[in-house]
């Protein structure tokens, strides 16, 4: 199997994998990072969202051969201690229910705030449209994103 390198959550990682292995399964099965979730395998639910060179990406749709040498941030690397404004807001708003989609939700939201520090409700809805939540935590997700944006502004 071919060899690849990634910088995952700031750490260099080297490993072998079949070239068509989706980044999702490299993270979960090769690198032991199970925070990134499998939901559909088809780019339809966004449970697998990670940041690839800072861009929110469907890790289930990116073969490792296309990610070689690149920089990946997963939910485990968003902050060392749940101190990212979104993680704090998620706790404040009591967002998760089953919780399975939430790593993907938070990673999508983090990419949104990086681009748009003060998104409107419709910008949030537009950006987060592909992130499915079967439990219906959407209203709290929107509130938590708004809360995190406000906190950033106040501390910015």
């Amino acid at each position, binding site marked *: 199997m071919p060899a690849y390198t990634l910088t995952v959550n700031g750490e260099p990682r080297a490993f072998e994998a079949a070239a068509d292995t989706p980044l999702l399964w490299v993270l979960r099965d090769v690198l032991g990072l199970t925070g990134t979730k499998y939901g559909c395998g088809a780019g339809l639910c966004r449970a697998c969202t990670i940041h690839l060179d800072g861009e929110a990406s469907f890790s289930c749709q990116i073969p490792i051969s296309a990610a070689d040498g690149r920089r990946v941030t997963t939910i485990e690397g968003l*902050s060392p201690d749940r101190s990212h404004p979104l993680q704090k807001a998620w706790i404040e708003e009591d967002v998760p229910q089953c919780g399975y989609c939430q790593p993907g939700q938070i990673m999508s939201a983090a990419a949104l705030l990086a681009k748009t520090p003060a998104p409107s409700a419709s910008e949030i809805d537009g950006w987060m449209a592909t992130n499915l939540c079967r439990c219906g935590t*959407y209203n709290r997700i929107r509130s938590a994103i708004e809360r995190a944006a406000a906190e950033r502004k106040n501390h910015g």
Partner: protein
Amino acid sequence: MAEMKAESEITRRALLQVSGGIGLGLVVSFIAPAGALFGGAAPAGAANAVAVAPGGEVTAYVRVGPDGIVTISLPKSEMGQGVLTSLAMLVAEELEVDWSKVRSEHAIANDARYGKWGTGGSRSVRENFDSFRRAGATARELLVSAASEGWGVPRESCLAKDGEVIHEASGRRLAYAALAERAAQLPLNKKAKEPKLKPRSAWRVIGKEVRRLDTPAKVDGSAIFGIDVRVPGMLVAQVVRPPELGGAVASFDAKPALAVEGVRAVVEIPNGVAVVATSFWAATSGRRKLAIEWKPGPNGTLDNEAIRKLCLAAVEKGITARNDGDVAKALAGAGAKRKLEAVYEFPYLAHATLEPMNCTAKVDADSCELWAPTQSPTGAADAAAKITGFSVDQIRVNTTLLGGGFGRRSATDFVEDAVHLSKHMKAPVQVIYTREDDMRAGLYRPAGANVMRGAVDAEGWPTVWDQRIASPSIMREKSWTAMMKDGIDFTAVEGVRNLPYAIPNVFVSWADVVLPVSTHWWRSVGSSQNGWVTECFFDELCALGGKDPVEARKRLLAKHPRHVRALERAAREAGYGKPLPSGHAHGVAVHESFGSIVAQVAEVSLEADGQPRVHRVVCVVDCGEVVHPAGVRHQMESGITVGLSAALTGEIAIEKGRITTGNFDGFPLVRIGQMPRVETHIIAEGDPMGGIGEPGTPPIAPAVCNAIFKLTGKPVRRLPIGTVARMA
């Protein structure tokens, strides 16, 4: 130790009788003198006690850490509904411990210790409201006894408060952590067995706004769902099932699959052909190379249209479930303009939990360990015992977090697959259903049809309600026929047989339809479709009689004051009857299920493309008693979301005997931009406690459809709603 075990065995059995299925067995895991803590003449201060306290397990439910953190072990599955919080609140209330010190976790399933573990029917809190408070109180009593005996003072002179036992007269106090071991050794005296529970006025946790305990791990990726379990030496498997309902494996060529790097085996098991590999992706790659010849089943012509016809063909041949007055005579006597007939139809639905079905099993020579996201660890252990030939005592079930349940995870198909494969491979195996496998794995909310006939009198009030239901029986399929009184599957008629409206002539019948599509309990079960049919047809009768849907309901629900109270509150909070933006309408529904009454008012408009848009839902739930208000609100929102997805687009497609819906493109879920604003109001006035997980679901589809009926003048009689084009 053996003697000790035998003794606790007896104690526990005695306890099982007094505690109604919840064992409070003491766990005597470690015995050491705790005398040192009591030896000194000087009072042992809490701070000192903490420093030397070993902590330990006080009872099967309560463990105290050296740092004073109390961990509560709970035999109910957390699938998002919040039981790891609400049940912990019950225990913590009586244990007298500050909420910030409380943690909770799934217990290791043990029927002898905890009773049978199944999570469903919106039962967890309402059925355990007393027993889990008692579990906290028992631990508290043991801790108090441990302190008072150590101090040599009457136990009545000691009290438990904020994680400590205090002897007020002397000012002595000891942290629970310092008392846990000693408490665990105490016999269960009467006080501990039948502890006095706090009066409502003294509650400090129950009914209060506390944070969910499972949140922190769910925001940093550390929460462990079934799919996240990693066992040393674990293999990963996918199971390819026969694509056709009732089909079977004829033959397969494993060689090309086995040639894929990482594929370890191709194995036929009862559910299909499994590819076992070193990773999920290796299993996927092997599966793509696997050539299987299938034996077709006898259902090659089955599709949604055929199912509709079969239901309609059966609908007039049902068993009578209710017969008040004389429906036939009343219908015959009603003028043509005062009666109507309608056919209501609904499709199969998948549970579509976001975490697909999976299970990890490790079968050894004389034991089997499972790591399963299951609603029923007891069922999982039974299934594993059957396959391995072991007794259930040899099966250890670790219940992980569940990425959604909705009833699906009370089944054991995914457990069986894992156990078969681990047994065969002599290695730990994690079975993962791909999304398509999950959606096609053959367990659905029943499809069905209803023929409705109704009439109103000269004043426009309903006089006839004739409802003929045809739908496949879940209970017959599960072979629970012993529970089918008079041949009726009560889940098929729930919400209809007990139709609350005061109508003089009511007839309800149900016809079973035997179909090869397997059904299963799906959030709110029969009420998920029956609430839609009854509440929509009620609005049709209102329209026929020229009555306002809220006023008509209030009048015909006069003998159901809780319904009326919920409905009035919902109407008031929603501003029902007041002007709305142009093109918007309110739709109303009220439905009782699982012991709770839920009224919803939905504000709906129609988009240019004919898609309904739900702007706002006011939801009033009367659940009698509330433990965790935020949990109740979350469950109402969640029930509404699941019900709304089903109403708008939910439909499993069957073509040529195959389930063709496979992923979220064909089974769309409500997205953030489609999510209505939901305002939940809780009525908890001391009526019998109702469930919360399911009752939020039934009213949303009829509330939305009734609003569409108001907007278009055309009733929605077939789900999913789709677009107005489809409605017409």
